């Protein structure tokens, strides 16, 4: 089948969307951008193709009347199983790479101890793996680097102590290897991994009991459907480094404008707060950009601002919003400069202000800055769509709603749970359009 792919190479994450010729989204993929956009692009695309397969499985399995109500459970089992396969594959690569890296003069005389220590670590990692992907298991991140890294560190501490090696040495071996592994393009045998995952699930999944054979056939059929790369469009900061020609590249302003229009066709104003830029875009009834403004001399008030504040407060990024929601009053933070805001934050803490109240003030400061960019682009028109990583932060959304109401009155405010894919969605629609025209 014909597939249209949009890839958005952001400063923090890279997103991909697979779309069919009816402009329906088949799959979404996301990965960390690393320092290697080429690999990030391949991984995100690969992830979106995996997600597409799940859409196709769903479509296929819907033909089985007896399975109604259980498809989601089965597919969740299958996905966990597939992710486990993927994880084990990358783990094997990581182990092999660590072993290769643990050779040379630096390790002279200790090769055997190191080899055995690494083997022991990876045995433990493999043993733990199924639990990481068990139903209900909570993972801090879905990125291999994060999952494997945190466990490697924990286990290697014990192993180092037991084997008389330094923890730092094992960590160095890992650090070097993970970069290689992460920057290797994904292996191409998606189908084999699916089949292995399917075998594991059909043997154990409660969701498809008594229908195992029919399910298996339908999943295998869906795997046979060829996914053709009909056209690909890239956008985002990394777009110029993409290994494709200019016709395949669109600015993220256009992609965000069109993406927001695809999600909410009545959108007229779009605000996107990403890692390092804030964009306010005005679009017409067809999603065509009429005007835009961006921060350009300074990145204060962008997603990274929150990251910095989280570090300053020794909190996780995702914990900021919920804590700010507990505020009883909003502390006024004047600085739009990220670093100065850090200084103000410490100053306020020293004065005895509550953390939640200060955080509420910081969220307001970000949104005030965004409001200035919006007003310069032409203000908030109905409907208003908020996208980007910061749109997931409830405290930021609360401030935004309030400020829009105060300054522009009642406006419909759209926030899509998949808003992080807005740019990629627009890019995919451009890909579809490129073929159409």
């Amino acid at each position: 089948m014909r597939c249209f792919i949009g890839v958005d190479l952001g400063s923090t994450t890279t997103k991909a969307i697979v779309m069919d010729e009816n402009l329906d989204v088949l799959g979404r993929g996301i990965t960390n951008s690393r320092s290697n956009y080429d690999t990030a692009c391949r991984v995100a695309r690969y992830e979106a193709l995996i997600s597409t397969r799940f859409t196709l499985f769903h479509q296929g399995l819907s033909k089985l009347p007896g399975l109604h109500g259980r498809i989601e459970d089965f597919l969740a089992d299958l996905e966990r199983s597939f992710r486990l396969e993927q994880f084990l594959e990358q783990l094997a690569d990581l182990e092999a790479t660590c072993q290769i890296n643990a050779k040379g003069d630096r390790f002279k005389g200790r090769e055997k101890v190191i080899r055995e220590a690494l083997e022991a670590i990876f045995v433990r990692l493999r043993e733990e793996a199924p639990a990481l992907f068990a139903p209900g298991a909570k993972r801090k991140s879905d990125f291999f680097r994060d999952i494997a890294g945190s466990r490697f560190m924990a286990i290697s501490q014990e192993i180092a102590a037991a084997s008389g090696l330094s923890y730092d040495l094992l960590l160095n071996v890992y650090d070097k290897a993970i970069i290689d592994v992460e920057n290797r393009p994904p292996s191409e045998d998606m189908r084999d991994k699916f089949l292995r995952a399917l075998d594991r699930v059909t043997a154990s999944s409660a969701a498809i009991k008594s229908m195992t054979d029919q399910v298996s056939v339908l999943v295998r059929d869906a795997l046979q459907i060829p996914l053709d790369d009909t056209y690909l469009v890239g956008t985002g900061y990394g777009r110029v480094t993409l290994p494709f020609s200019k016709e395949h590249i669109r600015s993220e302003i256009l992609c965000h404008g069109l993406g927001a229009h695809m999600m909410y066709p009545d959108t007229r104003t779009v605000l996107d707060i990403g890692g390092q830029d804030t964009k306010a875009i005005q679009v017409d009834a067809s999603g065509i950009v009429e005007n835009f403004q961006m921060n350009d001399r300074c990145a204060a008030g962008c997603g990274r601002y929150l990251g910095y504040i989280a570090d300053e407060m020794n909190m996780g990024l995702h914990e900021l919003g919920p804590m700010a929601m507990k505020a009883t009053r909003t502390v006024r933070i004047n600085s739009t400069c990220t670093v100065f805001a850090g200084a103000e934050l410490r100053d306020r803490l020293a004065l005895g202000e509550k953390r939640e109240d200060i955080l509420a003030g910081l969220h307001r400061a970000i949104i005030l800055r965004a409001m200035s960019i919006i007003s310069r682009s032409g203000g908030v028109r109905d409907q208003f769509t908020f996208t980007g990583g910061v749109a997931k932060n409830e405290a930021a959304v609360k401030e935004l709603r309030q400020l829009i109401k105060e300054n522009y009155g009642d406006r419909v405010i759209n926030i899509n749970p998949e808003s992080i894919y807005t740019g990629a969605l627009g890019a995919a629609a451009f890909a579809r359009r490129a073929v159409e025209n």
Partner: protein
Amino acid sequence: MSVRPVAEAVKELSMLKQKEMIAGNYELLATAKEKGRKVVSTFVPGNLNELMMCFDVVNNLPEINAIQNAMRKKSGAFIMEAEKRGHSEDVCTYVKADLGSIAKGNLGPDGRPLPDPDLLLLSYTGCFTFMKWFELLREQYKCETAMLHVPYEGDGHASKNMRDYVVKQIKEEVIPKLERVSGVKFDIDRLRQYLKESAKTEQDFVWVLESAKNKPSPIDAYFGGVYYIGPIFTAFRGTPDATEYYRLLRAEIAERVAKKQLPVTPDGEAHEERYRLVVEGPPNWTSFRDFWKMFYEEGAVVVASSYTKVGGIYDQGFRHDPDHPLESLAEYCLGCYTNRNLPARIGLLEKYMTDYEADGLLVNSIKSCNSFSAGQLLMLREIERRTGKPAAFIETDLVDPRYFSPANVKNRLESYFQMIEQKRQGAKAPASAAE
């Protein structure tokens, strides 16, 4: 890279001529003291070059020195030097580049020291910073200062009173000081002669600017334009050299028009004219070539710009007039682009959008130049409203390299060009199905 390699690496005659003229003026400056010539520092907008020539003084332009230093990547260090000496980050970067350069020996582009001025001639006050700049220079050089107060055209035009007021100051303040400093008696017939030469030059200059009405345009009226304004905006207006320069330039461009050639860029002839733009605001000088490249690589050609009017809006009919010498100098000072009020600037830009059949307006807003930047967003909105053409806003600086962020500027420009393209295709059915 998508520019055709052309055998045009050979410099055109006009380019060689201008180079020789600029080198000649720096030579005059470097040897002024030993040859006993007096030096007058003055600014580009509202410059009284013909009048100064009547006193045999050498013309030194601090703004041009700052630009020269910026294009040679030296302004950043000079600005830091000025900041070290107590000038704040928000001060005009032309001023700081100049003050920093003075602190570091004040060398001209030829590596020889620029002479201390004998007179600071403030011939235009529409930029308030000019006045403060010369106040600082007066402190530095302890030399004579002549200040010509030019009233702002707040009502959109110059009244007779305003003109008389400027003429009175030229007679009573400027000429006596020039006479005193130079020891040369003012001769109005000499001034008439120079003004006659200027008017001839201005005719050819306007022809050059208006050649951009052709499709394709044979010139880039912003990036190329800053070279074309060189002689007429600086120490050469009123000289036979300037007349000769514009004669050569006009002939070269006429040839380009006949051959339907596109503008010359640092990489040879531009490959296409995909977007015709009007640009408001000065260029960035520290990354001038990189900035330009962001345009021609995408097929964007600037067909008209306000920056090429800072030293006179000749294309709207003004000519220096030998029959009314002092009055025409007064009118010239009053008519500078930044001395016009916002409605007048909007009217001019709108006219350019129409006359040059532009696809859009781009504003390059300069961080440290309030004379230009104040009100630019309002201007942009109004032009959008009147013309229905897309406009965009980018922010850079004149000569402070810290305020030019290439990735961001490029990103905005590319978005803007694609936005124009998208609007063109707007008639075609867009993707509109909801997810």
